[in-house]
């Protein structure tokens, strides 16, 4: 029997099962194995808002998609090449987007009459028998029975043994794609360190899945996806939320400031709170507040006291924090507000992704209340974006909104671990003494006397003798910070606060334009998490002989100084966004360029194929 190994360049696998089936764990492990093997990967966990929707139903389906390749990939893939469906609901929920010819691996033991009805199939109908899967390569595997059989020697209740079937499936897929297994075995032993019999059972199920692949002929000899070339360096896989938490810690460390997080749990931002809570030994204090308002209030109080105040939330929470952000604008103190965007309005789609908080971040406050806004563009970029947010907050004494989203938060990718000395030095430069003289010539402290370069005011923390001062939300007199209702002073202060935010652009690097041939007449301009799909689509357009330029915005306020000039260089500018055109509207208002908006609000990242079609359509009409 000769088993031929097939070489492929890239593969997309979608693991789908019930919320309690452990699909996210399987996905995480497969990701780790793939990155350790050397592939490039991009992942997309896709789970319901309910913790445990009724078992076996469509709302309870939880999925994890991974693309891994022998070249650089920037998205989790438009459609799966392989669907692993642990039950009928998982099959039914994911069949829609599945291209014909895909491999479908199902656990036949779950395709009982009762489960089929729960998944919404008419009584007596099974997709395994009615021909509806014709065109797919269906691998009907008795995953449950095989797992229970493999664990017979363990003295486990049947239910516990059955739960090992996710590891069996992982073992099978690991064999199919020749993944290294050592890290997963080590992971299971550590995860179940306190229950060695469960560790051994999970390893046994994992191994049984691998052996099943090797002995059955159903999968041929499996597939090989070679490792992807990468820049030299040390790498790890990282999710956006973890990278963001690490960025905050690293930046606080660079600034020599204790980090204080005031936060209230909210999907999909809570993992940042969880991660920071585990890092107390860095001088991190995490405060789980009674509500979103108290979260940011405590963070602002800590900033007043000389800490780096941070609050983390999602769209509904940002709405609640608006008034305090306005206070921070008035106090001119460093504060970082992280908004991990999700589908809205209102509670919306808590576990799905969207970019629809841009205008809220920019303008969702009373009065002229300018706040620098940045957005991360990939899971790994959440690290750098967090460092940049801290740099701006501390340097310019201002609240900063950092936008991430559900896709970045939970998605993961290989990330080159930076050296600490590559990170910017951030200088809090606390005020320590008088900075002015009063009318009779005695030295005094003016809390709103500004740095001529940055327009930042001094940061004088309680405990510093001689600098006692009062700040507040009432309009302040220029320099002295005393309450002032003077008309001209208010006009001056409003314009100065705006000018301070505009000054940030002076310190930004020029925009990077990706236009290999230099002959493109179409520019695709994105911001935030659309970076991956846009990059992939542009690559495809170019591979097909087209020319397109690409640029991506990290800074949404202020815009980079060269943005207007860049936009003017192209005959057409396409702006894809997961909202109804928020950035496009801002650009049209600001620059004499009729940008074209491409929008989608389906709770999912753009599909590369759709973007490619849209770009080619614009390019064809130049």
């Amino acid at each position, binding site marked *: 029997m000769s088993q031929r190994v097939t070489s492929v360049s890239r593969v997309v696998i979608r693991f789908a099962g019930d919320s309690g089936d452990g699909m996210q764990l399987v996905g995480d492990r497969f990701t780790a194995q793939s990155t350790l093997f050397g592939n490039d990967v991009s992942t997309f966990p896709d789970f319901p808002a309910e913790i445990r929707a009724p078992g076996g139903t469509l709302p309870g389906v939880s999925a994890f998609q991974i693309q891994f390749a022998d070249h650089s990939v920037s998205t989790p893939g438009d459609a799966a090449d392989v669907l692993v469906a642990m039950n009928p609901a998982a099959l039914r929920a994911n069949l829609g987007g599945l291209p014909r010819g895909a491999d479908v691996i199902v656990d036949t033991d779950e395709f009982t009459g009762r489960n089929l009805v729960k998944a919404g199939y008419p009584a007596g109908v099974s997709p395994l028998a009615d021909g509806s899967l014709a065109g797919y390569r269906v691998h009907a595997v008795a995953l449950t029975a095989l797992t229970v059989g493999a664990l017979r020697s363990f003295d486990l209740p049947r239910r516990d043994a059955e739960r090992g079937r996710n590891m069996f499936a992982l073992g099978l897929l690991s064999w199919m794609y020749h993944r290294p297994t050592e*890290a997963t075995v080590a992971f299971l032993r550590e995860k179940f360190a306190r229950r060695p019999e469960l560790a051994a059972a999970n390893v046994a199920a994992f191994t049984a899945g691998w052996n099943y692949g090797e002995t059955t002929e159903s999968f041929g000899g499996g597939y090989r996806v070679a490792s992807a070339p990468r820049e*030299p360096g040390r790498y790890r896989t990282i999710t956006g939320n973890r990278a963001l938490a690490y960025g905050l810690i690293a930046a606080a*460390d660079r600034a020599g400031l204790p980090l204080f997080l005031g936060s209230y749990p909210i999907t999909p931002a809570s993992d940042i709170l969880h991660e920071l809570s585990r890092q107390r030994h860095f*001088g991190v204090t995490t405060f789980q507040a009674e509500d979103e308002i*108290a979260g940011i209030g405590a963070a602002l109080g800590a900033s*007043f006291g000389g800490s780096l105040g941070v609050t983390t939330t999602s769209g509904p929470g940002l709405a609640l924090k608006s008034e305090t952000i306005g206070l921070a604008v008035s106090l001119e103190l460093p504060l970082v507000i992280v908004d991990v965007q999700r589908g809205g309005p209102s509670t919306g789609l808590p576990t799905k992704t969207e970019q629809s908080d841009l205008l809220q971040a920019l303008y969702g406050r009373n009065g002229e209340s300018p706040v620098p806004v940045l957005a991360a563009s990939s899971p790994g970029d959440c690290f750098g974006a967090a460092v940049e947010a801290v740099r701006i907050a501390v340097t310019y004494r201002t609240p900063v909104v950092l936008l991430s989203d559900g896709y970045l938060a939970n998605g993961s990718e290989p990330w080159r671990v930076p050296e600490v000395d590559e990170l910017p030095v951030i200088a809090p430069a606390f005020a320590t003494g008088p900075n002015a003289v009063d009318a009779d010539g005695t030295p005094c402290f003016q809390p709103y006397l500004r740095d001529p370069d940055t327009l930042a005011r001094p940061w004088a923390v309680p405990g510093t003798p001689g600098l006692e001062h009062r700040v507040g939300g009432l309009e302040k007199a220029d320099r002295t910070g*005393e309450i002032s209702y003077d008309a001209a002073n208010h006009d001056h202060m409003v314009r100065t606060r705006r000018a301070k935010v505009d000054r940030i652009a002076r310190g930004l690097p020029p925009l990077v334009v990706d236009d290999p041939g230099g002959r493109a007449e179409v520019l695709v301009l994105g911001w935030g998490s659309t970076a991956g799909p846009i990059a992939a689509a542009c690559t495809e357009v170019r591979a097909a002989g087209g020319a397109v330029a690409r640029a991506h915005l990290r800074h949404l306020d202020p815009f980079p100084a060269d943005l207007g000039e860049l936009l003017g260089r192209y005959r057409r500018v396409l702006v894809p966004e997961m909202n109804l055109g928020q950035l496009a509207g801002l650009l049209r208002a600001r620059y004499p360029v009729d940008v074209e908006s491409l929008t989608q609000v389906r709770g999912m990242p753009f599909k590369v194929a759709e973007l490619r079609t849209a770009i080619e359509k614009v390019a064809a009409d130049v």
Partner: protein
Amino acid sequence: MSDTPLLTIAERPASPPSARDFRSDQEVRWCPGCGDYAILAAVQGFLPELGLRRENIVFVSGIGCSSRFPYYLDTYGMHSIHGRAPAIATGLAVSRPDLSVWVVTGDGDALSIGGNHLIHALRRNVNLKILLFNNRIYGLTKGQYSPTSETGKITKSTPEGSLDHPFNPVSLALGAEAGFVARTLDSDRKHLTSVLRAAAAHEGTALVEIYQNCNIFNDGAFERLKAPGTRDEHVLRLEHGAPMRYGPAGVRTVVRDPGGGLRPGAADDAAVVHDAHTSDPVPAFALSRLPEAGGPTPIGVFRSVRRPTYDGAVAEQGRRVRAARGPGSVADLLGGGDTWTVPAPFGSEAR
């Protein structure tokens, strides 16, 4: 980064500070005759007693007439937004345990818009001293009823009389398990100062309700507690360890009600002895309900019980984690987990 305080409390200065040292150069802008003036004078007079340098004291306020308070003290201060002062002060006190942090708030600020933050500050027992100026009216918005206004209050927003039942701030604070709860009067400087002294000495959150007269929109709200002819009849001055007697020459008593609470008793009844330090919050709660039982209004310290402070626990946990794990290394954090190395191509410089 370390969790050692940025600064430690400075030595007492050579020349003892006076009230004048705590007075800022700002013109005080309350209505003439406002009770806030008396409270400000009492606080300025008391602060030197703390033995702290003024740079180590912070006053945080919300919004309302009383919340202008920080502008008039030459300490660090923040006039924040409506209802949020306890939350902001919590962040400050937790991150800077070396500071003496005071919150100034009013009945609308603390009990309406900021009710949530108040009860959670009390529950956590953060080291804050909260001065709640209760004038039973909204002053800065010109005279609407407040959450402590009596039912039936005729105001601009309730021309037919208010319908909702008021909060009793002391009962509320005790319900939130506050360790220190006291009440005093704006016009009784000596009593006010003694309560401030007890609050300052308490470790953890101290709530001091100060009955404060708004002479513009609710004048005389506490008059019967203040007027020489009526105050003895209507005020019970609490003293730990003393029998609870009031009335002219102390002829009246407070006794246990068979229902479990307290009520006014006869002159020859044995008065209940006030115990502010008992861990059981029930006696203090019963005391807070005394006016509703037809008895006098107690002033003084209802409850003063030590329990672990939140800020202390945060600092202790931080020390414990650091002792167990050592100070964090950013390089180790970033390079933790499963990592792999892509070598530089042969002949090129390693990165």
